[in-house]
Structure formats: C-alpha cells, structure tokens
C-alpha cells in the first residue's frame, strides 16, 4: 500500500491515505482486541488500538492494499501478546494472575459447551478458529495474518474445525 508519491506534499498525502486506512481497520481491530483483552482491563483497549495504529503508521508502505484488515489484525495480535506477556511478567512476583494458563476466550464465552471445547484445543487452533468465526477472516485473510500460504491456511483451518467438532462432542460427555 501507499505509493503516495514524491515531493513536498508526500507527508500530507501519506497522512490522508493513512487516515483512510485507520478509519477502515480501527473498528475491526478494536473488536478483535476487545474479544481477547482479558485479563487486561478494558481501559487499556484504546491504548492498544493506538499502539496498533502506530505500527501501521510506521509500516504504512508494507500494508497490502487488498488485505488491510487481516494485516492489521496480525499487528494487533502481536501487540496484544506483548501487553499480556508484560502484565503477567509484572505480576509474577506478586500473585498469579487470573487467566495465566487460560485464554481470554475462556472468560468471555457464555456457551459452556463451546467454552469447554475451545479450552480443550491448542492455542493455535483456538486462535485460528475464532479469527475465522468471530473476526470473519477466511483462508486468504488468515494467510495474510499468519504470513503463510493460502493453501496452508485452508488446511490448518479445516483441521482446527475438525478438532473443534470432535471436542464439542467430547465435552458433551462426562
């Protein structure tokens, strides 16, 4: 993205293009982060979004034209991981934080069966599935988020769905 030209108005044109990008991706990035924010406080959400936008601004020329949302969610994923890792590291000497061994999804999914099935999956499967089911990313977008081929993303997604289906059946038993 962002061949914004040369000359004295480059900065202005870059800024305008970035504003358009930010308008487009911010709602999606915000929802992605909100779904997975726990155990960070909700008051951190805007800060995290802003941090994502800073990365986008810094790497504006790298953002693919046809997959801005998927690429931005990839950035948000890293930003969130760093923030959660920092919070856990900071709290380690005080007390074990809630959710240290659990995913954020464990704390926000109200459907007990779905929650249990998600909890039984690997982190990778869980993340892939929720990106697909909640954030609406298909194989092509997932490929951008994970920096893998579309075919590889489709295969991973298919396998994750199969494992999820199996877990849904499994958790229904006792």
């Amino acid at each position, binding site marked *: 993205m962002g061949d914004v030209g040369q000359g004295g108005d480059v900065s202005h044109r870059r800024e305008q293009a970035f504003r358009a990008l930010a308008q487009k991706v911010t709602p999606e990035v915000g*929802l992605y982060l909100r779904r997975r924010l726990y155990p960070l*406080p909700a008051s951190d959400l805007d800060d995290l979004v802003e*941090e994502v936008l800073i990365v986008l601004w*810094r790497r504006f020329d790298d953002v693919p034209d046809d997959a801005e949302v998927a690429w931005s969610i990839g950035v948000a994923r890293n930003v969130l991981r760093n923030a959660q890792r920092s919070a856990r590291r900071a709290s380690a000497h005080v007390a*074990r934080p809630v959710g240290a061994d659990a995913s954020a999804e464990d*704390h926000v999914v*109200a459907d007990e069966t779905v929650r249990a099935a998600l909890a039984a999956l690997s982190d990778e499967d869980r993340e892939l599935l929720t990106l697909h*089911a909640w954030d609406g990313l298909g194989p092509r977008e997932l490929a951008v988020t994970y920096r893998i081929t579309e075919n590889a993303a489709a295969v991973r997604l298919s396998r994750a769905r199969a494992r999820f*289906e199996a877990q849904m059946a499994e958790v229904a038993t006792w």
Partner: protein
Amino acid sequence: MTSFERLVASDPSRDDAYAPRDFDAMLARVIAQPYARVTSWRAFKARVLTGFTTSCAVMAAATYALAGAGPPLVRLTFAAAPASMAAPAPTYATSQKVTVTGSGFASAAPTLLARRISTTVPSLATFTVMAPPSERDAVATLASALGVTLGAPRAIIVAPPGAHEWTARGEGASEAFFARVGGVDLWLYGPGLSAGLPSAPPEATSRGGLSKVEIVQRALEIVHAVGTLDTGVPVVGGGAAFVRGTPTIVVVPILIDGHWSNLSDTVMLDGRGRVISARGAMFSLGPPASYPLISPRAAVSHASEQAAIFAHAVTPLGWSGTEPSGAALPTGALRLSQSIAQYRILVDAHGVGHALPIYQYVGQTNGSRAVVLDALAINPRYLVYEVHGTSTR
C-alpha cells in the same frame, strides 16, 4: 445449529461495535509519531490480577410492587443465605451411604448462563423457574422416557446437597442420579456413577444397527418425553453409526426465551439406539414478567446492598474505564472494568427459582486481586434485600 454456528453465535462481541473515545485525538497522536521504529511507546500499565470467583447463594420472598404502570410486577426480596443452594428435598430412608465418584454435575451448575444478552432495551423478561412439584413423579417420568425400571432412592452424601441416587435398571445402564438444586431438577443416568457398583459391560463392536438419523430421532424422543422445554437444534457427535458399541452423543440445548442456556439434555446411545447414559434438567418456566433494566453503571451502585446476597467480600468503587487508573483505591474497594449481561437462576425463600438478568463484572481490588462480581440488572425499586432478618428498601 452446527458446532461451528454455535461457535459463531458465542462471539462475545457479536452485536457490538467499537469506536475509540476520541478517534481524532488518537490519530493526531499517531501521526505525530516518527516513521522510525518505536519499540516502547505504550506506557507500562500492567494490572496485577489474581482472583477469586464469588459464589452466590440467595433466598428471596415475593411481595407485590405498587409502583409503575401496567400489570403489577412481583417485587423480589433477596436475602443472604447459607452456603447450600439446594431447595428442600424429600427425605428418604437411607440404608447405604453412597459416594458419588464422578457425578458429572460439575459442569451443570444450577444456573442458566445465556450468552451475552442485550440490555439496551428498557426492560427484559424474567421468568419463574419451577422444578417439577414431585421428585418421585419427576424420576418416574425420567425412567419412563429412558425405558428403565426404577428402584429405591438413596441419599447422596457428596455434593450437591439434597441429591438422591435412584437405582434404575435398563438395557445399557444401571443407575440414575437425581438432584434438586436451585429450582431445577438435574438428572444423570449412566453406569458406574457410584463407587462399588458394577458398570454396564462393554459391548463388542460389530456391524449392524440404526442409522445416524434414526439414532438422533431416538434421542429426541427421549428428550421430548423427559421435558416440555424449548430446545434448540441438536448437536450430534461421537462415533459412526452402524457400529454397535460406538456411541453417538446427541446434545439438545435448552433455550430460555430463545437464548442458549448452559443447560442441555444429552443422550448417548449405542448403534442399536440403546441408552448408554444421559443427563439433563427438568424444570418449567412461568409466564414472563418484564422488569425495567438499569445500566451496568447504575447496577453496580447497588452491588454493596447485594454484597451479602452474592457473598461478595469487597466494596465496589464503580464501574468505568474512566476511573483514574493511578488513583489509590480505598481498603477493600473494587474497581470494575468490564461487564457481561446474562441470565441466571436465583432462588427465592420459597425455593422458587427466578431467571433474572444479571451483570457480571470483572475488576480488581486495591490488593490487585482480580474479582468477578455480580449485580442484578433490574430496577432496584423492585428489589427488597433481607440480610439476617433485616429488610431494607
């Protein structure tokens, strides 16, 4: 609804939108940043979280409210209660103490947790939740639906309190387990529930039997025979059909006013359609009453009054992401930052359950412990609190 559709429906932000508090200011700050790589822009704002989950144990008595237009609404009186949520259960002669080794009730808490419900509407339906009037009749209905012969009840000495085990003899299983908890009858049927009792012998795997469709139909017949509840689309899992001894598991979700609850009727059948095990809930919902709602922020201001009801050990300071993040909290105070609205069953003083909208908050204390706190989402003018015999409001 397929498992995947169920996953989609469980999206905690499904109906939400996100917009920063001040997007223009945010963009201005972002654009003011240099293009060069910034490695540590964000202030270190770690929140030290550890926690406990509060439990609720309530009793309520009903009086009638006089305020408001339209039909009078039941005014609910909540009071602190002992630890047990079990409704009074009939007493049966106990000839043998039975220890439940794997009751399976751990995931069937006596609450209904609908997925996030919208509280943007001015009022929301609440329901009276009623267990069948007679435990014995309920178990007889259950036995009939499952096609088993019922024996005598025995008291269970392990949680949940007030639970009974009924011996039941069928083709594929040998025991039934029954508990009246929180306005709902929970039941469990299957082999090997209790220590020292023989399990059903494993069946040799062989070809032949019912089709998957026929097995699912058999499961639905059982579920419909057990209860009259609104149910969702069954979820089918387990092994392939046509293979005897390979179970098919049919999970039929129970809906509350169209919302998914965390209760379901689950039947595991073998390839011949015989019940290997099953479990579920028995209750009925009274006519809905539409109570005015209050916001999460308003509800939390009443959480102190409800602290004894919900056994909260901390004093809520407020619900907001706008609290000064660096402000010191008073001793024992709690700052809340997220809320989820959900339905939950609370039991009144007469043992009657009510499915009520509740806000569940996540927050932290000044001791940096993470806390989950609950507050009723309905207008407090319809609530009366009784703590140790003292009535307020």
